[in-house]
């Protein structure tokens, strides 16, 4: 059962590079990082983050920040798709929006209330704000989408998993339209401390260049935040209503390392299986791939394993970059944000550079794109996403 393509007819992005696709794509193509010292992380071992700038606080009293990111991205994607939720048959519209941490800031705040003021001071809005499925739920409420609604969690692969599941729904005929993506707002003292204790975060003295995937001087990732949402439709559905197809999702592969809670399998066993499954799903080989948007977290362990997988399965001469150099690592939103960047790469024929990469680690024997974007036709792009728990997702995007 190969050869199914889901049309992407709308994209919405909220990242530290800005709100909206144009601001994001400009910054990613320019390869300008966004990491900075974060006053809200004062007193913590790592104080660097990639924050969404100037995000409106509308409805902050009832929606966690991660939900507000999801709503903004979904709104943008639907507008671009030319869909009017007031007129659609909602039961044919599914929502699949993943997250890794859900409304962690809201949960953390209410836990402080519990400790400081006792149980009667805990807000009754705690769970409506904090649950990990609430971004998906609120998007469904906002847009009257009464089809299936779910929130897959595969940690840092969640957003990519959501797009893969969304495509499966279209293939199975479960829905005509899927609002799919990921959302995350984990830049909190609690999350920063927890990742710092794992020694997963960069402690670079020069915050602006801290997120530098595949560079010899990389020393961990930078905590990011945001949301990526795409509108998926079957090609027939998009054609029938005269919608522009921006790019297509033509392959989805998922796997588990079944090896360790957080460390990747040393030979990238799960990553390989995911990439192979995506290629098989699309009926392609690695040689058909013209660009790889790597998971590329800027941690030594990921970069070494992932580059070996790319070299073996795709080729040492295929352009590779990690847009996390710009966005930092927005955890469960990353996979959807990066699938969107991969879609834009094939649409525009542009490979964005890896920001802050100046001295490629020789261990990464692949064609890393850095310093400047490359232009040229890209037929197929691969976007990798690997989550804690050894949960891996690979997506293939085509023009």
């Amino acid at each position, binding site marked *: 059962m190969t050869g199914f393509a889901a049309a992407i007819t709308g994209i919405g992005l909220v990242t530290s590079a800005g709100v909206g696709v144009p601001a994001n794509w400009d910054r990613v193509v320019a390869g300008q990082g966004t990491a900075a010292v974060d006053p809200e992380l004062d007193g913590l071992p790592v104080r660097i983050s990639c924050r969404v700038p100037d995000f409106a606080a509308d409805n902050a009293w009832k929606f966690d920040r991660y939900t507000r990111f999801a709503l903004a991205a979904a709104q943008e994607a639907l507008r671009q798709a030319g869909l009017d939720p007031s007129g659609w048959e909602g039961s044919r519209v599914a929502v699949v929006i993943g997250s890794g941490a859900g409304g962690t800031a809201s949960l953390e705040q209410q836990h402080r209330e519990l400790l400081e003021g006792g149980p009667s001071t805990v807000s*009754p*809005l705690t769970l409506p704000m904090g649950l990990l499925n609430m971004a998906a739920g609120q998007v469904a409420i906002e847009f009257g989408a009464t089809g299936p609604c779910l929130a897959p969690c595969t940690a840092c692969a969640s957003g990519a998993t959501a797009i893969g599941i969304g495509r499966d729904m279209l293939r199975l005929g479960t829905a005509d339209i899927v609002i799919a993506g990921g959302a995350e707002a984990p830049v909190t003292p609690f999350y920063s401390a927890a990742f710092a204790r794992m020694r997963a975060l960069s402690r670079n003295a020069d915050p602006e260049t801290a997120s530098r995937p595949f560079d010899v001087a990389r020393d961990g990732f930078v905590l990011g935040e945001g949301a990526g949402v795409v509108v998926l439709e079957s090609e027939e559905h998009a054609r029938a209503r005269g919608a522009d197809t921006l790019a297509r999702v033509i392959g989805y592969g998922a796997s588990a390392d079944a090896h360790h809670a957080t460390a990747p399998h040393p030979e990238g066993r799960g990553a390989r299986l995911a990439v192979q499954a995506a290629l098989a799903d699309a009926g392609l080989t690695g040689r058909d791939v013209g660009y790889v948007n790597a998971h590329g977290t800027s941690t030594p362990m990921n970069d070494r394993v992932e580059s070996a997988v790319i070299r073996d399965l795709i080729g040492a001469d295929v352009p590779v970059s990690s847009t996390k150099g710009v966005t930092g690592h927005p955890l469960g939103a990353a996979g959807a944000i990066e699938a969107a960047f991969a879609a834009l790469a094939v649409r525009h024929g542009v490979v964005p550079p890896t920001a802050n990469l100046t001295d490629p680690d020789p261990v990464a024997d692949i064609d890393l794109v850095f310093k400047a974007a490359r232009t040229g036709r890209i037929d197929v792009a691969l976007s990798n996403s690997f989550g804690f728990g050894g949960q891996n997702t690979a997506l293939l995007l085509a023009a």
Partner: protein
Amino acid sequence: MGTTFESVVAVLAKRFDIDPAEVSRESSFDDINLDSLSQIEFGTALNKAFAVDISDDEMAELSVIGEVVDKLDEKLAEKV
């Protein structure tokens, strides 16, 4: 210090982004879009702001802002 009504409206504005101009003593919770969970949260916010102890059950018996103002006045009087 303004009136208790003004203080209650200030809590609504701060906690729920409600436009003070939209609120009168006759406004029901429905009128200002406070669902049942938000009504309980409203009580919690008042308790914190005025160091009183309106219980969830007491809050559940109220339905318009004027009643909330009266309840708060009653609690404030108990404190003196």
